């Protein structure tokens, strides 16, 4: 009752001068409604595909997961027929490969991105971007056969050197007398080739972020007498920190999902890899690729379960990266 009693005074004619914003409304025509609906559906489709991937992998992996349960994540064996399978030995090496790949790729990629956005003369910038794009476009299978046939024989020397001279660090030592076979097909070699494949991803995203650093602040740094590197360190890198972290995480996700290179280079073993220089290793994606010819339903189900683990892990890593990248682009709605 009381609001009704109080209402009349406020809306009375006593204060006619008060300005109210005029309500602006646009009438949306049928063509626009159809257009917006269509565009929204396309956006939804991307979400739907992601959801469907998860749903179908879960359904198809259910027979394995029901038989093995959570032990699938920790089981070191891969004996599908006896229901004694798991990714416990494979997941660590998957992460190890991705981690080593990042150690190599991130410095190179960030330096390349800095060169393209800050140092390259404008004539060179376009070709440089084209080279990075081309690096991303070269088929992974070609990275694989290049790594296997060209890099592997040339890589043994450096692996042996590390093992001989840095062998006092336990995990860098390869036990036993020197034999090339001990060093071929190693985790380190696979990670090195994978690192070349994630350089373009990290480089192109961080280049985008670097080039968005505000011109006014760059000029202010120069005006204060900064050298170019001083400007980069004081303006560009802090501005781009979020984007760089996101790019690195995206590279990590990509490296974990890398399939064919690892399947070609590494020789599969089912144990936890502690010596990255030693021959033998594994990754979930490579395991799935190696066994793709199998047709028995239980093996397929186990492979799909492994794929589900990979999908969930990479999706979580990548989604966090996506959130960081999206947040780092402040003023997304107004930029350019």
């Amino acid at each position: 009752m009381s609001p009704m009693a109080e209402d009349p005074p406020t809306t009375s004619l006593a204060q006619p001068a008060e300005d109210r914003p005029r309500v602006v409304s646009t009438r949306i025509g049928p063509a626009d409604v159809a257009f917006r609906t269509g565009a929204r559906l396309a956006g939804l489709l991307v979400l739907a595909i992601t959801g469907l991937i998860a749903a179908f992998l879960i359904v198809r992996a259910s027979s394995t997961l029901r038989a093995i349960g959570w032990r699938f994540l920790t089981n070191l064996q891969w004996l599908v027929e006896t229901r004694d399978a798991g990714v416990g030995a494979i997941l660590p090496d998957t992460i190890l490969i991705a981690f080593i790949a990042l150690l190599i790729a991130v410095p190179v990629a960030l330096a390349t991105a800095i060169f393209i956005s800050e140092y390259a003369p404008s004539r060179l910038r376009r070709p440089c971007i084209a080279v990075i794009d081309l690096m991303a476009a070269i088929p992974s299978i070609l990275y694989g056969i290049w790594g296997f046939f060209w890099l592997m024989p040339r890589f043994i020397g450096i692996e042996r050197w590390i093992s001989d001279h840095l062998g006092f660090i336990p995990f860098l030592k390869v036990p036993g007398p020197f034999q090339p076979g001990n060093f071929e097909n190693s985790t380190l070699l696979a990670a090195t080739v994978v690192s070349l494949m994630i350089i373009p991803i990290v480089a192109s995203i961080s280049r985008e972020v670097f080039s968005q650093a505000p011109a006014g602040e760059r000029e202010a740094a120069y005006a204060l007498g900064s050298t170019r590197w001083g400007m980069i360190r004081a303006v560009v890198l802090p501005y781009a920190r979020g984007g760089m972290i996101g790019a690195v995480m995206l590279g990590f996700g990509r490296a974990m999902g890398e399939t064919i290179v690892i399947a070609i280079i590494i020789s599969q073993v089912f144990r936890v890899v502690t010596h990255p220089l030693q021959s033998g290793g594994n990754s979930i994606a490579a395991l799935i690729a190696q066994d793709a010819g199998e047709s028995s339903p239980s093996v397929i189900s186990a492979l799909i379960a492994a794929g589900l683990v990979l999908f969930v892990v990479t999706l979580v890593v990548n989604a966090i990266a996506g959130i960081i990248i999206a947040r780092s682009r402040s003023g997304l709605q107004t930029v350019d």
Partner: protein
Amino acid sequence: MTAISKPEAAGPDLAAPPQAPPERRIRLRRVTADEVYPVLGSAAGAIALVWVLYEQLLPFSGAVGFWLCCYGVFLILYAAVTAMRYGQRDVVDRLAAVIAATAALFALAVIAEQIGYIAYRGWPAVTHSNFWTQTMEFTGQLQPLTSGGVLHGMVASLEQLGIAALLAVPLGILAAVFLAEVGGILAHPVRIIVTAMTALPEIVAGLFVYATVILTLGTRQDGFAGGLALAVMMLPIVTRASEVMIRLVPNSLREASYALGASQWRTVWNVVLPTARSGLTTVSVLGMARAVGETAPLLFTTGFTSFLNANPFHGPQTGMPLLIWDFIRISPTTDMIERGFGAGLTLLIMVLILFTAARALGGKAPGELTRRQRRRIARDAQIADRQHGGNSHGS
């Protein structure tokens, strides 16, 4: 033509008449002799020093190690040379510049080395004309290179790529239009998921199509399933890159269109998309170049065959990347490995053609006109001048 020279190119005649003294622009990123020669000198010194130490005196071997040592010694020498003339701040500044430049050079070197090696190893197989006109139908593992070829792989790859592009490019651009033009509450999660999906493990795309189309719908492995898997992989790549391109379209163009009374749909169709066309072409073809080389999505979906199968909706159809995988892995005889490299070279040529096409078709900044468009505008302006007062005809 770089984007920088655009303003001059638009009106070279207008700039000429006022006869001001020629003004020399100071180029901020000019490279001086003082910056070039110390680098060259340090590089030469480093290679010489490391050659003496590494190859002659110390018991090391291996090309990779050699170049790593060279690089380290080069950095030390260059820092020393710079420190002889400048202070610490400049030493750091110049070292940073050199490290950035060498990183870019390294990327270039890796690309050149890979292309060169694949071409070198693939050449013996490719020079036999039967390699591009025959299939592996009547060729065993032990038969020499004069028999058999990869025609079936090329046909399969092109058809699967066509299917993937037909599905992923329109959907990807539409999703990008949604993200950039329509927006709303949904846009944020979609953008995050799209970014996450660009790094989706390729093998998962293959497993997904295998689990849905083949296991659930019960069809056989065929080219269409492979195309679907490639499309799943391509969609986020095209969406993300297209969104960036659409965002580059200046807002003033949109506002001008709305001010003329156009609806949103008309604005997008007649203003935004044509302005971004060159960029959208580039990202679509780049997406195709990425997709044609993917092996893992095909592993579960297309099946293996050595026959020529031109029908993507029936029977197995092995694309080029899968063919290489098959040649190299299953049968390691010398000739099969040579065939693998030959197929690798063929695939590389396909990727390079797509890649060059992407650069040639598009690669312009949004709104930057082609020569033909500029000529047409000039012609329209002439006609309008002659008619005196015909101030426009809508296009």
